[in-house]
């Protein structure tokens, strides 16, 4: 075995992998679907292979197959997974346990959920190394502390004594990387390790992971939907779609000279041409010196915030998590009455509390949320969901209502065939379209879009943004667009407000905000957005003036 390893240099060799799952559609007989269709890949020692694709492409499923693991009811039904010269699918339960956490380790997307809240970090970090007998407790702890240092965690000697809830998300993600490296595996599966983080935190974690991979010579499967991210860390990239291989090549070739149309679409997805509109004479909605707090005034989340929104235009509010973006939306809609300041709409001051506002004011301001599937009643049909505001605000009934629902479905490019469908039968993008239609049904003057594309795949998000822009032209509706994604901002905004720790640090027309000279925070935010450029990460880290708030 050792000989064949030395000869080939191959660590992982997946051949004709086929993965299936049984699904139970409501009201139908269970059926078997194929998630991965005969995919093959090889990975040499110390190399990094990026697996990229939209959700449902099978990238996580393939990644986990290197640990002979199927999430949920997923089964590996065909092919071979040869790790260190043996087919691990034939290893049996005991053999598989012996390789998990020893030869292959896993870094999950949400470290916050992947750490056990009941145990100290250090106990969890050294657990696998001790279990497999690769180190004594003392050795493993020494190694863990060295890794904490390498991953530039604060207080490396004592951070292990903390519980998961006591450290930030970005730090937790690095502790998880240390946990994977602690048992000195041959291969680490990184499953979207930076997707749940803010851009400013992502760049630090990404740099830490890249350095750790380089210094420990561990091989890695790096799974993500973000090509710009994977371009920074991978030697090779594999593009997947619907469980099939689309294209596999060196990183430079994939991002510079994609051979397949789909890869090309992924590479160029971020750009939408949007001409900035000049602010009109009178703003439609003005937020005036609003200060808001949670917990009876103890936690100030908005400090003296003032912004204007003009009719038919888009104000984008950007900032990292905890900067107060969503709280601003809650203050405008009256869900969180401001402590000071006011919200002026169409020349009159709106009631602070939701209960003080007449129905007509409620109709004028609508919201769309990040999680479309939890924003809809799963037991109502699309027709009922979109029809509800028509009944509530306009008293429409019967045929008149159904006609209007059909029109709205046409507007969101879905067609009236969807009227009788339930949310569970729709894709993520379709659900978000239904939510858009529901908000349009009220004929509002302003729609507040809270991270509406963040949970969607890039190509689907692209479609939603285009739809929103078209609807703005037709319906003359204004948007307050809350996002942490600067690429989206460039595509949709007319003016931008940058928020940092509850304050607006930069505000103006899009061109003004995005033109240097920048303040330190805006520069950090802009420079942290991954670019599809090899070597971008090193350049960006070098050129930074301030550290991100997540650290």
């Amino acid at each position, binding site marked *: 075995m050792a000989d064949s390893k030395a000869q080939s240099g191959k660590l992982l060799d997946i051949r004709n992998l086929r993965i299936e799952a049984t699904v139970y559609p409501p009201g139908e007989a269970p059926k078997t679907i194929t998630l991965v269709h005969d995919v093959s890949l090889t990975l040499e020692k110390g190399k990094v292979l990026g697996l990229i694709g939209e959700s449902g492409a099978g990238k996580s499923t393939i990644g986990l197959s290197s640990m002979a693991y199927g999430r949920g009811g997923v089964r590996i039904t065909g092919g071979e997974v040869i790790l260190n010269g043996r087919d691990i699918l034939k290893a049996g339960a005991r053999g598989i346990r012996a390789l998990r956490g020893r030869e292959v*380790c896993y870094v999950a997307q949400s470290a916050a959920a992947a750490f056990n809240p009941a145990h100290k970090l250090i106990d969890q970090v050294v657990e696998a190394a001790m279990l497999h007998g690769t180190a004594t407790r003392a050795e493993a702890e020494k190694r863990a502390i060295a890794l904490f240092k390498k991953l530039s965690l604060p207080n490396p000697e004592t951070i292990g004594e903390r519980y998961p809830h006591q450290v930030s998300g970005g730090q937790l993600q690095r502790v998880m990387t240390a946990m994977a490296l602690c048992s000195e595996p041959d291969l680490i599966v990184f499953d979207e390790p930076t997707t749940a983080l803010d851009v400013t935190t992502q760049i630090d974690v990404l740099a830490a992971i890249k350095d750790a991979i380089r210094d420990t010579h561990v091989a890695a499967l790096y799974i993500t939907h973000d090509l710009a991210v994977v371009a920074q860390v991978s030697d090779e990239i594999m593009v997947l779609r619907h469980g099939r291989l689309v294209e596999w090549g060196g990183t430079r070739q994939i991002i510079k000279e994609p051979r397949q149309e789909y890869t090309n679409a992924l590479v160029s997805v971020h750009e939408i041409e949007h001409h900035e509109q000049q602010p009109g004479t009178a703003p439609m909605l003005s937020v005036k010196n609003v200060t808001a707090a949670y917990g009876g005034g103890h936690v100030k989340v908005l400090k003296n915030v003032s912004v204007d929104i003009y009719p038919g235009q888009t104000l984008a509010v950007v900032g990292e998590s905890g900067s107060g973006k969503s709280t601003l939306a809650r203050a405008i809609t009256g869900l969180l009455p401001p402590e000071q300041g006011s919200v002026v709409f169409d020349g009159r001051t709106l009631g602070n509390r939701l209960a003080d506002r007449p129905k007509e004011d409620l109709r004028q301001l609508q919201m769309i949320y990040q999680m479309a599937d939890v924003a809809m009643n799963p037991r109502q049909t699309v027709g009922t969901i979109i029809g509800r505001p028509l009944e509530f605000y306009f008293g429409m009934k019967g045929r008149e209502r159904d006609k209007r629902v059909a029109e709205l479905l046409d507007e969101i490019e879905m067609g009236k065939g969807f009227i009788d469908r339930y949310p569970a039968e729709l894709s993520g993008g379709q659900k978000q379209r239904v939510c858009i239609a529901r908000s349009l049904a009220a004929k509002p003057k302003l729609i507040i879009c809270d991270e509406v594309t963040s949970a969607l795949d890039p190509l689907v998000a692209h479609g939603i943004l285009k739809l929103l822009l078209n609807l703005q032209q037709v319906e003359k509706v204004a948007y307050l667009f809350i996002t942490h994604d600067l690429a989206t901002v460039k595509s949709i905004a007319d003016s931008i407000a940058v928020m940092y720790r509850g304050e607006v640090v930069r505000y103006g027309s899009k061109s003004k905000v995005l033109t240097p000279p920048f303040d330190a925070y805006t520069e950090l935010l802009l420079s942290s957005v991954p670019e599809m450029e090899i070597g971008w990460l090193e350049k960006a880290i070098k050129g930074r003036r301030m550290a991100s708030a997540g650290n």
Partner: protein
Amino acid sequence: MSTPILRLVAQRIALGILLLLAVSVLIFAGTQILPGDVAQAILGQSATPEALANLREQLGLNDPAWLRYVHWLGGILHGDFGTAQSSGLDIASSIRVRLKNTLFLAACAAIVAVPLAIVLGLIAVRYRNGFVDKLISGLALASTSFPEFFIGYVLIFVFAVHWQIFPSISTVDETTPFLERLQAVVLPATALTLVVLAHMMRMTRAAILNVMQSAYIETAELKGLKPFDIIRKHAFPNAIAPVVNVVMLNLAYLIVGVVVVEVIFVYPGMGQYLVDHVAKRDVPVVQAVGLIFAAVYISLNIVADIAAILANPRLRHPK
């Protein structure tokens, strides 16, 4: 120990005391509303009106209700539950013996039932939806579905009458040596165990299964841990709060709900004491026993609340 925890714990204890006071009012009021007259009960139907009036005066039954309540509560706070009207014996000393017996029986049942239920719950999770799981759940549910008196008589028939291993009557007194005492309670403790087992087992199973959906269970699986170690080390610590709650409810049942079992096995515990004196309309005894049962119930639930607070690492180790 950090201050927020201390505050939460103090809050729970204060609430418990308040609740107990409210219960004492209810118990007192409830026994006042009941039909029947103690004096009449003591003297019988043939008593003369004068004798009745004299006895009422002597027992203080003519005082206003709130005054009698204050006297009653004041006495209890000094350890004086009054005297039983039917027998003239001091209630506190009768209860002391009875309560000790009941606690002994409950402890014997709990020592077996609680660990057994939790271990069976863990095993059921390990082999979830398989044969072992269904067997455990099926047997536990069956034993709970049978009424306690049925289980009691079956146990007596098999172990006392047929095989004659254990006594059918569990009479003990203060002089009974420990081992004999233990032998006497084997059958009633077994009956109680069978009654409370399923509830705790099913709850443990459900609480742990709920935790098994978490991402950190997957993390543990991908470290190569054995299935049972995953349940023990990673799932169980996060399921403690609901498990402790149901365990405490069942412990409370073991103390306050043993009436039927005590009567079947003629065991001199609190339950039998209560039943005897309800039949005699002996209001002071009924009040005292009711109050003690309420105190047991409330304190066990406080213990459950405090355990749940302590089991939460977010409260134990604030940011």
